[in-house]
Structures are given as structure tokens and as C-alpha cells.
């Protein structure tokens, strides 16, 4: 009689201890993250802050596929850039407030991802990467040729930042950041929600062992396509915001280098860490910006070297390495 309650209390205490050991830290991290996001335009030049936020969401979208489904897409520029153009066209021709235009752009990206995803998830590994690259290149040439609509190499210029006629947000990048940030946070929350849902667990199961997931009765291909479409939607949200922020969409957005850059950001931040993308984006965008005025001519050499160092020395990316160190420290104490 006496032993049972003790066991229960001790279990409860242990559980409590466990929860208290994990959850406060998580809240602290969330608070720090939010604080960083809110103070970013004070720390860096506001248009750059918006770039960092957009690229961070883009990297998180890619990580959903790369880290949690095990698919390396090398054609995500199609969704980022496709949405950038559609968002721009909607903003120019319809004149709706920019979040609506971005929503249309993101929906377009998801729609685009259905056939592309359906055709490419049949292959895996390097073949998957090549097939997605091929589709993205198709879209690139399409945008290059369809000059009357896209402006060809001149780009789609003069995209307005309509926001219910609030002039501060429409003209000042500092205030625009705070109008755009909720969209990014919403996208990040969606990504977090997806991977912590039962659906997300299935994705991880597919990543780790597709044969077993299939044996358990999951339609692996369908899950992959769904993950692909969700990832494209988030990438499209980021791309749309990026084009609104800059006031134009150019072929650069659809170029394969954009697909490469987001993979680089994700790898730098840490594959399968979700939040690593924010660190990677901040690092790459700031580095690019700094190099632009550094007077150093070999910009590619610097970014390449950083990439090589991270891949060799911090195989799990920055976020992943920190997390591992923390786990090791904790297991020692």
C-alpha cells in the first residue's frame, strides 16, 4: 500500500523533472528567436532583414523535404521564382494588398508542385535532384521567352507594395519588415506543425526506411508528393514576399543558382534541424552583402570555402553541431 503512491509520485516527479528540463529551454529558445526576429531590422539594414527572413523560410521549406522526407530537391527555384512572378503579376494587375498576392503566388507554387512532384518522386537520390533541376530549368526558359508577361531578362519591374493604403509600410522597408514578418512566422509555424503531426512522423518513417513504411500500409509515393507540395507552398510564400520586398521579380529567382543557394543555406544551418535554416540564411545573406562592399573580387571563393569548411568540420550544420554538443554536455553531467 505504501509503496504504490511513492512509485506514482516518483514517476510523476521524474516526468515533471523531465518536462521542466526540456520545456523551459524550449520556451527560452522560442523567446530568443522571436526577439531576434523582431529586433533584426534594428541590427541590420531593413531590406536585408527581410531577405534573411524570406531565405530562412525558403530554407525551412527545403528542410521539410531534405531533412524530414529525405528528398534533395535541386529545383526549388521553380517554386520560389514561380511564385515571385505570379505574386508580382497579381500585385501589378489586380492591386490587392500584398499578403493576398503572396497567397496567390504560394497557391500557384503548390499547383505547380503537383505535376512536378508526381513525376519526380518516382526517382530518388541524385536522380530526384536532376529531375527537379530539369523542371526548374524548363520554367526558367519559359519565363525568359515569355517576354510580354515576364519582361524576359529585364525582369518584372515595378511591383507595388499595396497594404491598405498605409504609406509607412508601403514605402519604408523598416515598417514593411514588420508587415511581412507575420507571414514568415506563420510559414515557420506551419512547417513546425507539419513535422510534429502524425503526417510528419510518417514522413520521417519514409525517410528512414521507405520499404518498412510501405509495408506498414502507407502510400509512400503519395506522402512524398504531399510533402513536396507543402514544401513548394512554403517556398512560394517566401519567394512572393521576396519579390514584393524588392519590388521586382527577375530571372535570377528561377535560376539554378537560387536552388543551389537554398541547399547551401540548409546544409550550413543543419539538415533536419528545421530552425537551422534561419542561422544559415542570416549567415549567407550577411556574407553576400558584406562581400559586395568588401572590394574583394573572388566572392565565389569565399562562399565556397565557408561551405567546404562547414561540410568537413560541422557535418550536421551549425544548428545540428550546437545541438549535439549540448546533448553530449548533458549526458556527461
Amino acid at each position, binding site marked *: 500500500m505504501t509503496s504504490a503512491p511513492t512509485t506514482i509520485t516518483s514517476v510523476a516527479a521524474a516526468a515533471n523533472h523531465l518536462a521542466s528540463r526540456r520545456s523551459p529551454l524550449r520556451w527560452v529558445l522560442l523567446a530568443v528567436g522571436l526577439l531576434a526576429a523582431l529586433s533584426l531590422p534594428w541590427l541590420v*539594414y531593413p*531590406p*536585408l532583414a527581410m*531577405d534573411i527572413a524570406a531565405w530562412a523560410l525558403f530554407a525551412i521549406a527545403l528542410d521539410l523535404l531534405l531533412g524530414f522526407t529525405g528528398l534533395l530537391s535541386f529545383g526549388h527555384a521553380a517554386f520560389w521564382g514561380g511564385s515571385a512572378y505570379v505574386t508580382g503579376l497579381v500585385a501589378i494587375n489586380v492591386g490587392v494588398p500584398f499578403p493576398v498576392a503572396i497567397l496567390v503566388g504560394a497557391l500557384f507554387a503548390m499547383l505547380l508542385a503537383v505535376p512536378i512532384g508526381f513525376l519526380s518522386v518516382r526517382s530518388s537520390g541524385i536522380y530526384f535532384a536532376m529531375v527537379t533541376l530539369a523542371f526548374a530549368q524548363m520554367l526558367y526558359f519559359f519565363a*525568359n*521567352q515569355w*517576354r510580354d508577361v515576364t*519582361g*524576359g*531578362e*529585364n*525582369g518584372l*519591374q*515595378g511591383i507595388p507594395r499595396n497594404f491598405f493604403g498605409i504609406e509607412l509600410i508601403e*514605402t519604408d*522597408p523598416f515598417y514593411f519588415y514588420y508587415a511581412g514578418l507575420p507571414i514568415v512566422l506563420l510559414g515557420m509555424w506551419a512547417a513546425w506543425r507539419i513535422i510534429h503531426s502524425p503526417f510528419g512522423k510518417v514522413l520521417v518513417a519514409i525517410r528512414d526506411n521507405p520499404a518498412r513504411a510501405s509495408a506498414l500500409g502507407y502510400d509512400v509515393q503519395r506522402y512524398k508528393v504531399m510533402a513536396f507540395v507543402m514544401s513548394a507552398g512554403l517556398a512560394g510564400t517566401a519567394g512572393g514576399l*521576396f519579390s514584393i520586398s*524588392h*519590388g*521586382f521579380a*527577375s*530571372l*535570377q529567382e528561377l535560376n539554378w543558382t537560387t536552388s543551389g543557394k537554398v541547399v547551401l543555406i540548409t546544409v550550413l544551418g543543419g539538415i533536419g534541424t528545421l530552425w537551422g535554416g534561419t542561422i544559415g540564411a542570416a549567415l549567407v545573406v550577411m556574407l*553576400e*552583402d558584406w*562581400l*559586395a*562592399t568588401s*572590394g*574583394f*573580387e*573572388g*566572392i*565565389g571563393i569565399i562562399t565556397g570555402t565557408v561551405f567546404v569548411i562547414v561540410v568537413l568540420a560541422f557535418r550536421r550544420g551549425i544548428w545540428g553541431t550546437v545541438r549535439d554538443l549540448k546533448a553530449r554536455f548533458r549526458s556527461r553531467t
Partner: protein
Amino acid sequence: MRHKTTTAAAAALSGALLLAACGQAGPTAQTGEDELTDGKVVLGVLNDQSGVYKDLSGPNSVEAVKMAVEDYKAEYGDDAVATEIEVITADHQNKPEVANTKAQEMYDRNKADAIFDVPASSAALAVATQAKENKKLYFNIGAATTELTGAQCNKYTFHYAYDTYMLANGTGKTVTEQGGTNWSIIYPDYAFGQDMTKSFTTAIEGSGGAVVEAIPTPFPNDNFATFLTKAAASNPDVIGSMQAGGDLINFVKQYNEAGLRDQGIELAVGLMFITDINSLGVDQFAGTTFTEAWYWNYDDENREWADRFMEITGTRPSFAHAANYSAAKQYLDAVQRAGTDDADAIVSELQGYKVNDVFLRNGEFRAEDNRVVHDAYLAKVKDEASVSEDWDYEEILATIDASEAFRPVEDSIAAGCNLGS
């Protein structure tokens, strides 16, 4: 009594003198301080300093702008309105979003009064929007798109050195008039190539020639053999290549290997920089005709400037370098004339202004579309044997008068340019 009057007179006199002194000294002392926004003039050079346009403009254009600053200081000395001039620079890496952010930062944070150069048309147009929004000056030199003086033109953006119309018109018209009536045009299938082909066709047909074939190629592209064979099959007098940069170099190599020149088919090139000739070697390009915006060895004035440029950079200037120098000098001169660096005052000072300098011959800042027109030149690449010194690659065949070299005002307005709005 008398003593009192004298004192009063003296006081009045000295008071008047003091007032006069104030009246005179006041504004002169203040022009340097109050008439300049932020107390100084900041010139921003935004271009490609690490990629494909590095040689033809790049870091040496920054040097050219610095030369203009030196010359301005030497010319006006203590009378200079711009007492403090700063030159800042950034590498846009040919990425329009980097150009956009950097331009914004230059205008907004670094208090740049004018931005120069900006090659790559998507970047050039993005910066034009920034100039419009920030109400600051922008002299585009590096980009070829006529959109800058068409649908995307604005009050603060001047298009300085060249554009697709000027290149096509010069070469197309002059070569046709000199007897090259049948043309085959090979062009890269994107905006620049398509625009050039359209402008060339108009110019050639306007001069009584004909374009027998226009062949699109992928871009970028290495192998032009099939396109050259196809172009040669229709037996034209001239093959017009609209390729640029690395593609042009490959194209010219293959034109030579195919032996088309020996068959009497001439080569005309849409856009070429002297740095292209230098990198491939003059023998590869020998005999090619093209339109040049400026040539360093054209006359003594150009040569003298080119010598100075060479002392600083160790190389001969391309037309883009000279244009950057000229644009910066013209801007500073306008500041001097206006007595302020207020952007609106400078724009009204420049619009309609006619001038001659080392780059601008018969130059005019057209008020209707902000196109800066000047004499252009039809050039031919020399044979290796007649090259007398390094960089002496070009022979100027004809001067195209400023009034004919560029797109007429009506066409700019028809293309959608409205500076009034």
C-alpha cells in the same frame, strides 16, 4: 556737435560696411555647408567587380569616377561648391536583388547623391526604380536596354553611353549603305538579342538592305557551327552576330574556323568592347565592324585622357570607363552651376544641357526622355599587321552624328516614356 556727427557718420558707415560684409560673406561661406545635402557630395559606383563585366567596367570605372573628382577639384579649387566629395562602391555580382538593396542603401544610408554605371539590364532597371523612389540621380552606363528611356524612364535616371538602338542603328545602317545589303543575323534568343535583331532589321531595311535570315540560338551557347552553316547557305554579304561576352568570343572563333571571311562574307557585331578584342586577340576579330561609343585613340583629347587612365590602372579604357568619368564630371559641373546638390535642381540644370567633353561629342542631355546623346562611331578591327601599339585595335570608319545615333524622342515617348508623371 561736429564731433557727434562724425561719430554718427562713422557708426553708420561701419554699420553699412558690416552689413555689406555680412551680405557678401554670408552666402559664400554657407554655400559649402548649407547648399549641400548632408554637407557633402557622395558618388556611388555600383557595378560588377567580380564577374563577366569586371574588365569592361568594374573596379576601373571606380578609378574613372575618382579621376573626375580630382579634375573637378583642380578646376574649381577654392570656388568649388562641392567641398567634400566621397566615392563609394559596391559589387552587385550581376544579381538584381543585390543591386536593388545596395542602391537603396547607398541613397538612404550612405547619402549618395548619384549612382553610376550598373550593368545588366534587370539590375539597371531595379536601380532606376530606387532612383525614382528616393528622388536621387542615377546615370546608367553599363546597361543596353532602351526600357530605361522607354516605359521605365523617370525624371532622375539618365541613360548615358549606349543602348541597343544606337548599336543596331550605327552598324546596320552604315554597313548596308557601304554595300553590305544582304544580311543573315544570328542572335541569342533572349531580350537583348531579340531587341537587337529588331533594331538591326529596321535599320537595314530603312537603308535599302534586306535581312534574308534571322537565326535564333540558345543562350548561353558554345557551338555555333550549325547556325553558321545555315547562315552561310543563304549566301549573305554580311553575317550579323548579336552575341555578347563569352558567346561572342566563341562565335568569332568558329566564324574564322569555318573560313567564311575567305568566302567574302563579312562579320558585323552588335555589341563589342575593346576588352573583348584584347582577350581574344586582334587577329581573331580582324575586319569585324561594330558601333563604338568612344575610342581611346580617336584623337589627342581622348588619347591624353587614356594616358592618364593608363597611369592609374595600367590598362587602356573601354568606352564604359570614359563614360563613367564623363558622367561623374558632368554631374559635379552641374552641382557647381546650380550651387547645390539638390536632385531636382540638378535635373533641371542637366535637362536640355548641351556639352562637349572627352566622352560626349555634340553631347546633349535630352529633356524629353533623359537620353544623353552624343556622336557614335562605326569602327573596324584592324589587321594584326597594322596594329602599332598595345590596344591600338580599332580604325574609325565613320562618325555617326549625335542627332542620328540614338532613338528619336518620338519613339521613346511612343515606347511609354513620360517624364512628366
